[in-house]
């Protein structure tokens, strides 16, 4: 009977908080969007599922051993933890919400050795790290997973269209205004008193405008890990919404005549150029922006494996088994950051709003940049390909193509838009490097 009571008092139904219920609903919503609406399912299914797992009451899957020990609040263990974390608590004392809060804060702000000692004590007392916590540590806290995915993306990327028309790189540069404009937006929200952001948080939110999943996760894991869940969800959701977000802006900023501009067919790009290009990018990273070295280094490495033609088996694996494996664990790990106390916050609303603004600003700036370039060059660019500069490969390029076909049914812009599209990936990785350099 006593055992039945243990089972009941330890059940989810008995312990479910409102916040957890809401977050489980959010997880289910993400799964629905991914499965029925096709919203970036490769990431949103693991993220959504991980989010549900992270909010199972009492399971503590997203918590470290010490956090689980604090949650369980056995007086003896708390007293011992108090010694380590410098929280004044004695075994007899009542465990008030204030006390719990004090422990949580002390743990959150503890140094590496203090955290290690607290976890060692918790393990000795019979607690264990949650599964998702372990996944997060290995996949994201180490920085490895986004970088490995970026390597795989590099191995999937064809720079041919960009090499045929290198000046489309500038479109990829202009679209990064979405990132930095969003930081201004966050500062405005902060100044207006609506919600608080630090410069680190603002920068992490801004990277949503890069429209690049692994870059967003990498940057926010360095600058503002507590916002990682909301940022990743916003980034992938908006990438999925690109076909809805972009067309009105593209039409609003261009005339029908501009949209109908036909571009010359792209020249043939030789194998050697494709082999040398990732090395050129790498050399510029070496010379100008060492802080972009992890992201762009792995990206160029993947691309070199693809193009060099002598390591197909490595290229294949990084495009398939390896990226798939890492995607599963990256997604579950991101989901582990969707716990109620971190996600159900006014800031999350701000992040969602700013992320949307970032996409819009990036799209607009890409289009305007194309129009600006047309003032200076004879060979006209269809400004619709400017919007592809936000990256969101290859969705944004397809959107350019589709809007172009609406204006001129014989005008295929897809290959032209692939140039700014992949340029946007490089552009946001460079922006990420700048932000890590200046703030990290």
């Amino acid at each position, binding site marked *: 009977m006593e055992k039945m009571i243990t089972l009941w008092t330890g059940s989810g139904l008995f312990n479910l908080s409102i916040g957890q219920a809401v977050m489980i609903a959010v997880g289910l919503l993400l799964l629905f969007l991914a499965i029925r609406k096709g919203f970036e399912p490769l990431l949103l299914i693991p993220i959504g599922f991980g989010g549900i797992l992270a909010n199972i009451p009492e399971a503590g899957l997203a918590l470290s051993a010490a956090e689980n020990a604090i949650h369980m609040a056995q007086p003896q263990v708390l007293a011992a933890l108090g010694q380590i974390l410098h929280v004044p608590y004695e075994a007899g004392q009542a465990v008030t919400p204030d006390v719990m809060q004090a422990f949580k804060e002390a743990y959150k702000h503890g140094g590496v050795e203090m955290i290690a000692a607290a976890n060692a004590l918790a393990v000795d007392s019979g607690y264990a790290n949650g599964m998702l916590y372990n996944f997060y540590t290995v996949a994201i806290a180490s920085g490895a997973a986004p970088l490995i995915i970026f390597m795989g993306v590099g191995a999937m990327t064809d720079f041919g269209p960009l090499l045929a028309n290198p000046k489309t790189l500038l479109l990829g540069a202009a679209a990064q205004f979405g990132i930095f404009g969003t930081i201004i937006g966050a500062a405005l929200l902060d100044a207006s008193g609506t919600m608080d952001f630090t410069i680190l948080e603002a920068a992490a939110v801004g990277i949503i405008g890069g429209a690049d999943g692994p870059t967003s996760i990498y940057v926010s894991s360095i600058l503002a890990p507590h916002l990682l869940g909301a940022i990743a969800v916003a980034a992938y959701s908006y990438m999925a919404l690109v076909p809805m977000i972009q067309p009105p802006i593209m039409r609003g900023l261009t005339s029908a005549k501009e949209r109908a501009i036909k571009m010359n067919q792209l020249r043939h790009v030789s194998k050697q150029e494709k082999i040398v290009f990732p090395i050129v990018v790498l050399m*510029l990273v070496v010379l100008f922006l060492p802080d972009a070295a992890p992201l762009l280094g792995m990206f160029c490495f993947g691309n070199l494996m693809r193009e060099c033609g002598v390591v197909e088996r490595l290229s294949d694996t990084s495009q398939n088994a390896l990226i798939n494996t890492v995607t599963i664990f990256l997604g579950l790990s991101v989901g582990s950051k969707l716990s109620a106390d971190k996600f159900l916050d006014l800031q999350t609303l701000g992040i969602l709003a700013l992320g949307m603004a970032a996409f819009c600003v990036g799209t607009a700036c890409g289009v305007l940049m194309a129009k600006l370039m047309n003032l200076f060059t004879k060979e006209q660019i269809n400004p619709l390909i400017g919007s592809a500069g936000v990256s969101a490969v290859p969705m944004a390029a397809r959107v350019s193509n589709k809007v172009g076909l609406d204006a001129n049914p014989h005008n295929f812009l897809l290959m032209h838009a692939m140039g700014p599209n992949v340029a946007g990936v490089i552009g946001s990785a460079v922006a990420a490097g700048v932000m890590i350099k200046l703030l990290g």
Partner: protein
Amino acid sequence: MSDLMTKAVELMVAGMGFVFVFLIILVFATTLMSKVVARYAPPEPATPARTPRSKPPVPPSVDPDTAEAIKQAITKFRARHKK
């Protein structure tokens, strides 16, 4: 202007400036690279020595099973449609 706003503006100026500088240099570097490659590289890239561990290329022609299948099919067909 709030402190955060100052920092944000500074970050934007430095960031967008740097992104443009970097990508403009990349435009020139890429254009130069393409020209150099076009001039100095062999017109058709020498197929690099295939490594022993890489997978063999797809066999070029009809596989024996298919050939056999065709033979059988034709035999049957002739048998059935014989006058």
